[in-house]
């Protein structure tokens, strides 16, 4: 039976017996392909007694980024320090998916503790891009991205603190969704930067994304930052009529595009949207603020990460290295347990929080964050959505090193997506085109709590682009 490239919609047309057969195949194939993709850190041991056979979504497989807690299942965060950690509880998002009948195939690979943007820095090695195994998936949710882009699974969970769902989605040619801040409960998500963290969704079309959001969204008593919204009917209200809708291209982001082919595809899309009666205009945002997005993100996220991960000491849970006394044990555990990549970020975060630097760096970054949020909110309050390329280029090779970190292309275009983490907006990346057989996506963002509207607009744009259920079979 064909199992590759099945969407949730395809699964809904199958009976339980067929789904069971497919689930078995999907697990087998995920294990086999993992030798090439390294998308999974571990696989679920499926027990008959755990399966919910009475729901419409019963036995539909998915995967979970390994920084989301799963009861009695190893949850490593992609780090040596948690390489033996088995949570005694499920994240709320997992309970909701389990209740709906979905079955997790396994836990997916990531940059260590989600502190990375390449999918290459995790303790369990890099994940590989299904389109070209010599290229990165992007990160930090690289394993989830690869598991969906290879056609194995209809969807997977990721987490997005700066762009960790939306950027890899662009690089592997699938849909990546970051909901409004707090719309999906974060109870059970390992905190990286808790003022920015969201759980996100990878899928191969907007409809599946909307279905998963319908099940996972909602206020949660266990997460005081979770929110209620008015409209949870995400999948029933897709296919918005774009006539009269107002979209905005941020001029400074557009002007930073250096990839001519990507620009041409984006321009063609904009023309098509205008043909449908959508009004697309250019708006400016203070370029100094746009160039400050990345440093602001870095200061805030590294500062929060250095504190949030102070509980990883080998005493309460996780791997412990014994020492002469408790203090020595903690130091040895953290020294051996963390990779150099995240130690650097913790050091930088601690530096930003030092008494002498706190006003100049951390407090200043929080003030700039407000200025950035105010400017983007002003644009979003006067329009239906902001649209731009999700990245300038296709996925780079593993040996790629950014040479010009002060260029507009890098500072603005390659890193602007974090504005939606600053202001809490819902934001979605959908596939735009293939350049030399490698995917690149377009990003659409709307105002806070307008998730239903954003998904509806994105589903229409997906039809205009005419890429639905794109995947790359890995042999």
């Amino acid at each position, binding site marked *: 039976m064909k199992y590759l490239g099945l969407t949730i919609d395809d699964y809904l047309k199958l009976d339980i017996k067929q789904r069971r057969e497919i689930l078995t195949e999907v697990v087998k194939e995920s294990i086999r392909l993992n030798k090439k993709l390294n998308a999974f850190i571990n696989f679920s041991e499926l027990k008959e007694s755990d399966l919910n056979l009475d729901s419409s979504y019963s036995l539909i497989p998915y995967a979970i980024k390994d920084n989301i807690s799963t009861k009695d299942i190893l949850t490593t965060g992609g780090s040596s320090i948690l390489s033996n950690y088995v949570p005694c509880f499920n994240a709320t998002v997992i309970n909701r998916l389990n209740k709906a009948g979905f079955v997790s195939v396994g836990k997916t690979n990531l940059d260590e503790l989600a502190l990375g943007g390449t999918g290459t820095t995790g303790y369990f090695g890099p994940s590989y891009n299904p389109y070209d195994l010599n290229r990165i998936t992007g990160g930090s949710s690289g394993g989830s991205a690869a598991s969906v882009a290879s056609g194995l699974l209809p969807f997977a969970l990721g987490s997005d603190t700066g762009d960790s769902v939306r950027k890899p989605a662009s690089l592997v040619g699938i849909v990546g969704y970051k909901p409004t801040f707090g719309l999906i409960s974060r109870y059970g998500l390992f905190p990286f930067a808790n003022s920015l963290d969201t759980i996100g969704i990878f899928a191969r079309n907007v409809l599946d994304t909307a279905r998963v959001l319908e099940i996972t969204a909602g206020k949660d008593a266990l997460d005081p930052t979770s929110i209620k919204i008015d409209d949870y009917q995400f999948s029933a209200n897709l296919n918005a009529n774009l006539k009269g809708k107002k979209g905005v291209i941020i001029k400074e982001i557009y002007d930073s595009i250096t990839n001519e082919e990507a620009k041409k595809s984006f321009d063609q899309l904009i023309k098509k949207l205008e043909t449908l009666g959508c009004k697309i205009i250019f708006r400016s945002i203070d370029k100094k603020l746009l160039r400050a997005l990345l440093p602001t993100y870095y200061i805030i996220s590294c500062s929060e990460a250095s504190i949030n991960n102070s509980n990883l000491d080998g005493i309460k849970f996780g791997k412990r290295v014994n020492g002469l006394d408790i203090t020595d044990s903690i130091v040895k555990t953290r020294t051996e347990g963390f990779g150099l990549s995240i*130690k650097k970020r913790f050091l930088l975060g601690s530096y930003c929080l030092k008494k002498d630097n706190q006003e100049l760096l951390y407090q200043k970054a929080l003030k700039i964050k407000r200025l950035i949020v105010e400017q983007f909110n002003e644009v979003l309050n006067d329009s239906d959505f902001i649209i731009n390329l999700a990245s300038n280029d296709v996925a780079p090779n593993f040996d790629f090193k950014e040479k010009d970190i002060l260029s507009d292309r890098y500072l603005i275009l390659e890193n602007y997506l974090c504005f939606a983490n600053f202001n809490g907006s819902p934001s979605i990346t959908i596939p735009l085109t293939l350049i030399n057989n490698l995917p690149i996506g377009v990003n659409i963002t709307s105002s806070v709590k307008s998730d239903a509207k954003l998904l509806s607009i994105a589903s229409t744009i997906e039809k205009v682009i005419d890429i639905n259920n794109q995947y790359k079979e890995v042999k």
Partner: protein
Amino acid sequence: MNNKVDRNLIKNLAEDLAFSINESEIDDIISYFDDAQNLFSLIDEIDTTDVSPLIFPFNIEYKMRDDKVIETNSSEILSNTETKDNFVIIQRVVK
């Protein structure tokens, strides 16, 4: 920034964070800090006079639990516990 980034500062920061750094890693870390400082110089250009800091993107209502604080004597509570290497031995939570 007020602190010159050198080997001592990196070691002190690592000590605060309860991990140690190999001598061989310090040059790499200093180079990483140099890049970060280049990036951070971009925020100096922005005037934030009279701007208040923003932490969460929008107002979040926190509901505190109705816990009551009770004074306890921890050494008395732990006096009957089994210890090994200065650790209190407790029953495994996850079996």
